[in-house]
């Protein structure tokens, strides 16, 4: 395996259809902006891109077939390069990065573009795309009616029982996240919010409230990755991809994913996310305490508390104490989502894994402005997607 570097990154600021940021822009326009920005940042011309690894969207573009990478190539210039469209629910961006990374690390190509973009429909994500009694997700929604927020809310409720987490502590995660987003030019929300405002927002799924759950957003992100040897032709200070890992759900998983599963022997939560992150630690030869900062998938503030514990970044039940003492802020000892996270960006589902790579790159270059993690050396990124998909990436300088 060859060493792989991130040469350049680009993001179209996240927004909501009809606002001043994304307006009525198509997913192709959002992606074009992100790709041009990444090419410029990398100092690479379109003609030098040898392949594209793209996240497949279920919601926008891709000719309805998830051919989002083909849309990008058609739009920017049909150079005849190979395109890989990767589908993994909300983990698709992380998956595209993983495939792009593997293709460069394996010596198949020298310079690859990774891209993901979304124009999302309004409201809660409709998790089942088919109306068939053989589809467990269809059955779950028709016979029970348990949308994403309710799945997260059952976990948040269980955490309150297991670790004594309070609703105020969940609200404090949002307050901290939104504080991080101030001055982040790519975040959809860039204003602070007070704890009383969070606690006054209505329950979407008790115990989780509107401001504690990420909305859907439109946005796009791109990264130009390259073999380390080749990278030296473009820059003196490339960011190194320490590793990229992908995993799926393990049989032992304890969470209520479908209609029913066997009562588990022990507490095995989010086995796909944990496996991806553990694999990443192992492959990169780093431990959880070596991580300078983490960008994790906070569809809800619950995850800012649960994931760091599940991955050994801190002890079980400790995350809320670290939160309250300011240790999860960019200047704390366990910075979580210094970007502001999904709660500040909204989820442009398949763009997220690529956007995290951009955020890690800026942090490691020291270009993150007000949200900069001082002396950031190693960054961890993680995404989760429907179907039991998860990805993790570790970048370092």
């Amino acid at each position, binding site marked *: 395996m060859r060493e792989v570097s991130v040469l350049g990154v680009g993001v179209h600021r996240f927004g909501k259809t009809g606002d001043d940021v994304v307006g009525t822009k198509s997913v192709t326009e959002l992606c074009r902006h992100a790709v041009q920005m990444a090419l410029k940042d990398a100092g690479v011309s379109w003609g030098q891109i040898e392949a594209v690894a793209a996240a497949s969207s279920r919601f926008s573009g891709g000719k309805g077939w998830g051919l989002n990478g083909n849309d990008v190539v058609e739009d920017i210039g049909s150079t005849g390069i190979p395109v890989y469209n990767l589908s993994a629910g909300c983990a698709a961006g992380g998956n595209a990065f993983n495939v792009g990374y593997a293709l460069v690390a394996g010596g198949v190509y020298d310079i690859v573009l990774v891209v993901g973009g979304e124009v999302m429909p309004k409201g809660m994500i409709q998790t089942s795309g088919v109306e068939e009694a053989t589809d467990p997700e269809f059955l779950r929604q028709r*016979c029970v009616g348990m949308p994403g927020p309710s799945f997260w809310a059952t*976990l948040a409720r269980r955490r309150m029982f297991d670790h004594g987490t309070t609703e105020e502590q969940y609200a404090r995660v949002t307050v901290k996240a939104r504080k991080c987003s101030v001055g982040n030019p790519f975040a959809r929300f860039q204003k602070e919010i007070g704890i009383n405002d969070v606690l006054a927002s*209505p329950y979407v799924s008790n115990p989780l409230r509107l401001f504690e759950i990420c909305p859907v957003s439109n946005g796009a992100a791109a990264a130009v990755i390259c073999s380390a040897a080749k990278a030296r032709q473009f820059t003196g200070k490339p960011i190194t991809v320490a590793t990229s890992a992908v995993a799926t759900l393990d*049989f032992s998983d304890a969470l209520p994913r479908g209609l*029913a599963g*066997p*009562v588990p022997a022990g507490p095995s939560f989010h086995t796909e996310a944990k496996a991806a992150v553990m694999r990443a630690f192992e492959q990169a030869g780093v431990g959880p305490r070596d991580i300078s900062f983490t960008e994790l998938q906070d569809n809800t503030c619950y995850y800012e508390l649960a994931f760091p514990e599940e991955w050994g970044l801190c002890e079980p039940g400790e995350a809320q104490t670290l939160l309250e003492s300011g240790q999860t802020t960019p200047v704390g000892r366990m910075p979580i989502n210094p970007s502001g996270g999904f709660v500040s960006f909204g989820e442009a589902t398949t763009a997220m894994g690529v956007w995290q790579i951009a955020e890690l790159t800026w942090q490691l270059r020291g270009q993150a402005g007000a949200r900069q993690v001082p002396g950031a050396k190693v960054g961890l990124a993680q995404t989760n997607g429907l179907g039991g998909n998860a990805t993790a990436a570790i970048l370092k300088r």
Partner: protein
Amino acid sequence: MAEKRSSGVEGAFVEEGSVAGGSFVPALRVPAVPGLFADEGGAKVFGNKCVSCGTPYFPKAADCHNPHCQASRMEDCAFSGKGVVWSYSVADFPPPPPHKYDKPFKPYVIGVIDMDNGLRMVGQMVDPLERVRIGAPVELVIDTLYHEDDKAYTSWKFKLV
């Protein structure tokens, strides 16, 4: 086996005492998805079980999903009975399609239940939020989910005991 009030449609019943438009109209009770559960002879859901490793499945699995199982041997199984609340939440807003509900929408509690039969199941709770607690004992019931075309569509739910 078949009860008196069975209408001839598989799994269909007349819902007793339902009121539509102010006048008493018994609505035909129909499962929201046929073949998954039944009310006759006590509420039950139809799944199966691998007799090699003991893993229960609902809905039925064609083969055992346990990667450590030596030989998948599936046997049909009707699951019923009692369990305890592992956790719960509330659908405070109407879920998107394909969920269906009677309008105006009424928030409902969703339970994640550890059943004595070995399944961790999800289902709506018939009880209000104020009464639901983690660890509370419940039983499986069949109850109305929504009405459409003068029919009452049912699903499995859980009820505090």
